[in-house]
């Protein structure tokens, strides 16, 4: 109940933030641009539209999550609004979860809006309503939820600029970490290989949420893959949130 109240207020805050509309505008522009690109390009035009479109949704969604998420908690502390809020009968973890869900709700609506624009563009081109695209978008959203948690975690102890850099690094590492697997294969067994194995276990693997290629190319996917990816997202998000709560609980608000 209290979490819900804070979440709704956070939602209000986010949708009154100009940066959200700026990013949304750019995302819409990129989606429209994908159509233009397809006309100019040679090859499978529909695939280009889908590739560029899904990538735009993902990138602008991540930017929304990071740019808004890293400011949410920091602003409350910096502007001292947190003083009165936490003097009300709410616990600190409720505050943090409220912030999290508020931004998740915002991102849900934004992703949905971008997804609909995308579907319409595809529809205009192919004459078919391709519901399967929504599945790719769903996993983009699951990734956004995780990125939101990460942004909030960093903003519990550092400034928005630093947190943004950290969160962006998390995102990039998460998408490049699968490269480690190749590296491991090429390394001779021994200490170096063990170290790489350990690293790859700790580092997030955000490629788990990437079904874009398979879906765009109409490849079959084992449903278990979907299930494990969703589970991976859930567990990782919970872990990050728990970490954020632990840090936030001990903080002095000065």
């Amino acid at each position, binding site marked *: 109940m209290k979490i819900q109240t804070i979440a709704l207020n956070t939602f209000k805050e986010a949708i009154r933030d100009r940066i959200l509309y700026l990013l949304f505008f750019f995302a819409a522009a990129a989606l429209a641009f994908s159509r233009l690109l397809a006309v100019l390009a040679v090859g499978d035009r529909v695939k280009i539209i889908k590739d560029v479109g899904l990538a735009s949704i993902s990138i602008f969604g991540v930017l929304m999550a990071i740019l808004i998420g890293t400011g949410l908690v920091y602003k409350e502390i910096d502007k*001292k609004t*947190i*003083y009165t809020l*936490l003097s*009300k009968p709410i616990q600190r973890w409720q505050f943090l979860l409220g912030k999290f869900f508020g931004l998740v709700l915002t991102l849900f609506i934004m992703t949905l809006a971008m997804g609909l624009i995308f579907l319409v563009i595809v529809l205009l081109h192919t004459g078919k309503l391709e519901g399967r695209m929504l599945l790719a978008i769903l996993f983009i959203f699951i990734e956004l939820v995780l990125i939101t948690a990460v942004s909030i975690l960093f903003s519990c102890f550092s400034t928005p600029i630093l947190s943004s850099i950290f969160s962006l690094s998390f995102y990039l590492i998460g998408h490049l970490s699968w490269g480690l697997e190749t590296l491991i294969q090429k390394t001779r067994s021994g200490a170096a290989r063990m170290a790489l194995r350990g690293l790859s276990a700790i580092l997030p693997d955000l490629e788990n949420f990437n079904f874009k290629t398979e879906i765009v190319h109409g490849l079959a996917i084992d449903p278990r893959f979907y299930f494990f990816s969703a589970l991976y997202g859930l567990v990782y998000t919970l872990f990050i949130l728990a970490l954020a709560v632990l840090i936030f609980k001990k903080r002095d608000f000065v």
Partner: protein
Amino acid sequence: MAAVLEIDNLYKAFKVGFIPKKREILKGISLSVAAGEIFGYLGPNGAGKTTTLKCVLGLIFPDRGKVAVFGHPPLAAKARENLGYLPENPYFYDYLTAAEFLDFYAQLFGLRKKDKEEKIATLLRLVGMEKARDLQLRKFSRGMLQRVGLAQALINDPALLFLDEPLGGLDPLGRKDLRDIIVRLKQEGKTIFLCSHILQDIEMICDRVAIIVGGRVISQGALESLISEKVLFTEVTLSGIDPADLVDLGEPVSTLGDRILLKVFQEDNIENLMALVHERRGRIHSLVPRTETLEDIFVEMVRQG
């Protein structure tokens, strides 16, 4: 009467600097506030008043010592169910309107829709901000924010109210309104904890005060027991007399035109002065006895402390 707030031997140090160095801010604060009183927490800038409040509200963690609010530790939700807090220099969500802001806080207390609307209307009227109801808080002036701040502190009808420099930014009328509100709240049986360094305002309404200097409470008690009723001196403004003749009677403070302001310390000198003025056909414009004020005590103690 039962204590609603109990602070026992509170210590808090802040780490400052690039290579953290501890600076002790609170050095063993102890005090207790009884139900139904107006308690003044007085001290010069940087004494540690706000820091104490933050410990009480669970916003920062003390290094040592105990705080009990209604017998609960500060972090317990129970402790905060029944209190209100107006921070110094309040600043709130600037993207909300005054009504939305109060509504948000009212929801945190689980007020029902109808009660909520009624409560918000009453509070906005109380602090004189009905007209600004639908104005975004970013467009509020400092004093207007202070007023809305008071409204949010009262949203749950708290039994214990913490006000940190509540008079900051208020115009003279606002100050008077606020004093009236505080006195009314006391009559309703609420307890008020007032941090301030504006003494004239405190003096009129406080039952008990604690004076804090450099992180220590150096004096605590009922206002009457701290201030004596004794007349310190009498200020007399007069004209038509040669200042040289007044030196024996008192201490001339200033002259403006032919008017002289004189501080007279002994009671019998007043009689002599009046006789002199009568004899020389001068005039007395005013005659004001000055008793000891909280300010005198305060200045004295801060100097010693």
